[in-house]
């Protein structure tokens, strides 16, 4: 059923309304009428949702009924939906690389919402460009490679350990790498957990004991990732400890669970680590024994929700409430003041927790960031928004609620894994809603506060989620490598080796060609398809499949054609 590549293109174009997301701003009927006029297009259909089961069956039916050998879908974005449509093509017997995605939602209807005519004209242009490229698409071959059923988990805190145990209990080998000398992460330094006021230590120690007794988990403490090569299913990992001893192993999937660290508020509110400390340091004092303090002032949003760090760290309000209650528990006559901007205690349990703190007599005083509190040697001065007056609160201890910030070294790790971080250094998932635990890179997943600050029950749920995502790779016997790789036309290659020089992955090498002269050859498994080699090839011998010179040039021509 695979059409030979030299048969004339028979292109089907499917245009998605995406409810009103596209159709509300683009005249979809006009785009469909226009598509009908484009050369090679033999079938055009509009769908309310092309990605629905109905839409996908219509694509498959049309491929068979109209003998389509190219499929173009104009819809949302290839980043989320290309795999789905490629699968539909594959199921109907069409090579999935004969599919072309045209982005008329994220990059058209949604960004030109007040200019329907311009948006419609642009959508027509984009469809014309997609159809032009579709003419030149070639079927590509995907390679199957075996999967190493081993997970690498970076970070041996609660989240890394939870994911490790989950995978180990499914029968996979797990390599757990922890930078510190001991497992347990941030939780090891905490006293109690909200909203139950349970002690953190027994929980962490139980998890550490489970990890250590699991025959499937190998723990590397005081160790970091030294180097990483390979691809989904087949990573070659080198881990190095502080003495420089290296261990090498292979892994099929990777979970990043490196967590976050509390900000040290140097220079803020007279922070000195003695009478003005952080919530994190307060946890350490609790662990040393009952705290002899009568008056405690906590200041929220220290170094957070500011120009430099605009995000909310999510955990600080509940942490302050927990620690305030803990102070009152030890000393029922202690006065605790929480100076806040907005109290974020969402959900059924946390709102009740907040109420409990108020009922227990914790004083909440709202401050305005324009007039922040001042910490003087004997009292904290705060302008109370509600009273309209400045209060002076004598204190024994000031506790600053500082945000979680990205771990030192997160950026270097991200570069090694070739995954992105956001502007604050937190790891950036493939899609905030649809793929919250995946990276765009196959086989690499993220869980916990490495992604952003979150409550423990949320991050533990992420740990289970990331383990399940990793298991989707590890349970497979093989993974299929992309067909988007470079290919050499040996007849044109003069063996100059520029492709070998420019490739960061060592995919092309020079070998002896049929004529006895050196020619380049590409290892398709090692090739990542970036096309750098094709860009520097002086003879056009190197082809970046799926992004060939001809395909890109055809799109340019279509884009700039006189309208």
């Amino acid at each position, binding site marked *: 059923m695979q059409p030979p590549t030299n048969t004339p293109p028979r292109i089907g174009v499917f245009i998605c309304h995406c409810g009103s997301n596209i159709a509300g701003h683009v005249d979809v009927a006009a785009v469909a009428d226009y598509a009908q006029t484009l050369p090679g297009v033999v079938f055009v259909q509009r769908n309310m949702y092309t990605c629905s089961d109905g839409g996908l069956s219509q694509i498959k039916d049309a491929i068979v009924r109209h003998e389509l050998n190219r499929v173009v879908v104009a819809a949302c*974005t290839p980043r989320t939906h290309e795999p789905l449509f490629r699968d539909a093509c594959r199921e109907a017997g069409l090579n999935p690389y004969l599919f072309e995605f045209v982005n008329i939602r994220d990059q058209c209807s949604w960004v030109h919402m007040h200019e329907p005519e311009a948006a419609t004209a642009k959508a027509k242009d984009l469809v014309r460009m997609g159809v032009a490229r579709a003419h030149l698409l070639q079927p590509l071959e995907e390679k199957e490679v075996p999967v190493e059923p081993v997970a690498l988990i970076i970070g041996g805190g609660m989240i890394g350990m939870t994911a490790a145990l989950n995978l180990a209990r499914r029968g996979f080998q797990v390599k757990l790498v922890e930078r510190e000398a001991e497992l347990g992460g941030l939780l090891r330094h905490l006293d109690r957990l909200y909203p139950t006021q349970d002690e953190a230590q027994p929980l962490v120690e139980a998890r550490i004991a489970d990890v250590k007794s699991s025959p499937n988990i190998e723990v590397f403490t005081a160790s970091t990732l030294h180097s990483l090569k390979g691809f989904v299913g087949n990573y070659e990992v080198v881990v190095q400890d502080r003495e420089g001893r290296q261990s090498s192993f292979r892994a099929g999937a990777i979970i990043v669970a490196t967590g976050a660290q509390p900000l040290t508020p140097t220079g803020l509110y007279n922070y000195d680590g003695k009478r003005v400390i952080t919530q994190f340091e307060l946890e350490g004092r609790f662990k040393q024994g009952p705290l002899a303090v009568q008056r405690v002032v906590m200041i929220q949003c220290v170094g957070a929700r500011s120009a430099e760090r605009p995000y909310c760290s999510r955990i600080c309000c509940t942490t302050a409430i927990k620690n305030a209650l803990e102070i009152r528990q030890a000393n029922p006559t202690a006065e605790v003041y929480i100076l806040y901007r907005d109290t974020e205690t969402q959900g059924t349990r946390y709102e009740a927790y907040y109420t409990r703190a108020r009922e227990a007599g914790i004083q909440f005083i709202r401050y305005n960031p324009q007039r922040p509190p001042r910490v003087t040697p004997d009292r904290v001065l705060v302008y109370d928004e509600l009273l309209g007056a400045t209060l002076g609160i004598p204190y024994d201890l000031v506790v600053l609620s500082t945000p979680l910030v990205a771990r030192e070294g997160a950026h270097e790790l991200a570069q090694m894994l070739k995954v992105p971080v956001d502007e604050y250094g937190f790891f950036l998932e493939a899609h905030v809603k649809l793929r919250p635990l995946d990276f765009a890179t196959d086989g690499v997943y993220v869980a916990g506060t490495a992604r952003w600050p979150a409550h423990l029950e949320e991050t533990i749920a992420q740990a289970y989620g990331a383990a399940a995502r990793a298991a989707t790779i590890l349970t497979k016997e093989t993974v299929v490598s992309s067909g988007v790789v470079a290919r050499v036309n040996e007849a044109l290659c003069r063996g100059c080796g520029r492709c070998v020089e420019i490739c960061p992955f060592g995919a092309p090498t020079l070998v002896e060609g049929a004529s006895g002269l050196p020619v380049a050859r590409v290892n398709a498994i090692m090739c990542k398809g970036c096309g750098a080699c094709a*860009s520097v090839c002086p003879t056009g011998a190197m082809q970046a499949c799926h992004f060939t010179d001809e395909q890109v040039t055809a799109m340019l021509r279509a884009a700039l054609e006189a309208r």
Partner: protein
Amino acid sequence: MSFEPRIVVFACNWCSYAGADLAGVSRMQYPATTRVIRVMCSGRVTPGFILEAFRLGADGVLVTGCHPGDCHYMSGNQNAVVTVNKTARLLELLGLEKNRLRLEWVSAAEGAHFAHLMIEFTEQVRALGPSPLNNNSQPETQSLSCETTHDL
């Protein structure tokens, strides 16, 4: 003179294309003057692609890629710097203003930056006026074909 420029944007699959999507997800509005061509890496863009775009009458070309150090392919964006710089010099030789061509970094998290770039580059190109090669018809005879202009 005010006119609607025709601008080609090359966007790398991993950072800038995702940033362009994020601009949409965030409903940021920008002029409909740009047409994005997705490539796997900004390092895939050749002088030939850029010159071909101008030959066909583009008023501006914007190449976007991952920030330095963030390239999904490690060093592809460094190759893009070389390509864009040398192509800009060629544009001058051809009598085109070199600031019709720009290279910018847009990460997957920078939807606002992408939208802002579309607005700002449109204004920049609009201020330059239509490209001398933009006669809204396709020249038949010039031969800046991408197959022959790789090794500049």
